[in-house]
């Protein structure tokens, strides 16, 4: 068994077998992370650069920890404190890094398709850690891992993706992945934040009433409102968004069943999620973060095996 691809650019390129292989390998790495020594020597001859052209806390730390837990050598690059600020092109920067004998590149970029461009021009393996509004594959994998861990299945699971669908790479990767794994998907949020072609493109349900969406689903994956990607006002105020689409304890208790609450972070508290939900008993937000390391270890491990 091996992955069908040399890079992890998006869930779009993965097969169902690939996804199952990553998730089952991640389960074994999760066990490694419970041991007294949380480290294995698998990638001790591999050098990985984390190339972050966009800010990140969780993803960058999660990747770095995953790399170190696999015994890889790690280089960190943040665009804000590098020569990229002097105008060096992406390709020049990466070729310079690769001439220092680097095997894999983990990359986040604000331009959609940046890692795909790089994959065409350089020999190293590339893992997309989020590109613009396109994909964030490892987030979708860790979301799926967490959903399956909590509910025991993906097939037939009803998942509502709620909030800023338009600007969310997490949403797109989740939709690709859950579709491939046979889950049922609904997107919910204000009409201005849901792309109008989404039903045609993916054949998924759209709901504008948050309560109806929550009543339908088993799992609610709540997304962050991405103010940094909205050039024009798409709803009148954060307060109004919270009133119409925010999720609070009272709303959850009015449902006739228990649902699982997820969020990829960082949370805008009091906007898409109130604190009594984010920190409440139905939330698995911190489990997601914990699982993120195991899932990224699996992706890195399986891709390192594909390199000659």
């Amino acid at each position, binding site marked *: 068994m091996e992955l069908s691809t040399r890079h992890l650019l998006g869930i779009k390129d993965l097969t169902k077998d690939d996804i199952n*292989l990553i998730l089952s390998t991640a389960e*074994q790495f999760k*066990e490694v992370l419970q*041991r007294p020594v949380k480290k294995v*020597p698998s990638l001790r001859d591999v050098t990985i650069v984390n190339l972050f052209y966009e800010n990140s806390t969780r993803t960058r730390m999660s990747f770095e920890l995953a790399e170190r837990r696999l015994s890889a050598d790690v280089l960190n690059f943040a665009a804000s404190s590098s020569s990229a600020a002097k105008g060096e092109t992406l390709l020049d920067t990466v070729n310079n890094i690769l001439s220092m004998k680097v095997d894999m590149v983990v990359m986040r970029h604000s331009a959609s398709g940046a890692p795909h461009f790089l994959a065409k021009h350089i020999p190293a393996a590339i893992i997309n850690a989020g590109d613009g509004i396109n994909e964030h594959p490892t987030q979708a994998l860790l979301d799926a891992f967490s959903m399956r861990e909590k509910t025991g299945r993906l097939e037939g699971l009803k998942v509502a993706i709620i909030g800023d669908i338009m600007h969310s790479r997490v949403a797109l990767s989740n939709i690709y992945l859950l579709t491939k794994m046979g889950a049922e998907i609904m997107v919910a949020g204000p009409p201005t934040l849901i792309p109008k072609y989404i039903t045609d493109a993916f054949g998924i349900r759209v709901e504008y009433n948050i309560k109806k969406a929550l009543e339908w689903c088993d799992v609610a994956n709540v997304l962050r409102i991405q103010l940094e990607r909205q050039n024009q006002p798409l709803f009148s105020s954060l307060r109004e968004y919270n009133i119409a689409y925010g999720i609070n304890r009272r709303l959850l208790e009015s449902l006739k069943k228990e649902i699982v609450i997820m969020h990829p972070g960082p949370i805008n508290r009091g906007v898409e999620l109130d604190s009594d939900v984010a920190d409440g008993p139905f939330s698995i937000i911190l489990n997601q973060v914990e699982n993120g390391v195991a899932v990224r270890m699996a992706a890195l491990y399986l891709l390192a095996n594909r390199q000659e």
Partner: protein
Amino acid sequence: MKAILTEQQVALSIKRLAYEIYENHLNLDNTVIIGIQPRGIYLSDRIVEELKTIIGDKKIQYGKLDITFYRDDVRKSLHVANATDIPFSIENKHVVIIDDVLWTGRTIRSALDALLDFGRASTVELCVLIDRRFSRELPIHADYVGAAIDTFSSQKVIVRWKQKGDKDEVVLM
């Protein structure tokens, strides 16, 4: 194809291996049994079963170890990882590793590395059903051996288990 151990011989070997472990570790008070995933588990399950009939239903500390992430050929071929389940510390314990076939010794080398991550064992011993002599690539030997055989490296040793729906036997191809 040549038979190395018949069904009856496998049963007797398992019994003997269990008694040998019992003889050296009396009561298994400070001893833990670790089966190597995936194929060593068939043997370790049977030996642990046998040990239970010898010393009663006293709880035997029995774990399973997967060495995939410790292999020295990670970049050459991909192996699917199996579950590791060692729900106890091996610090200052006597460890008996169990695998089906000892050949080059590389699997056991990886297992020794992996075990270090679960604590510093007092001693480590190795128990195998089949020892393919004179084909070691590393200085590793087995303490408890079902049958020792001489083979060419082109030959294959196949171990079949009743747990997998076959009858217990070992053949040389």
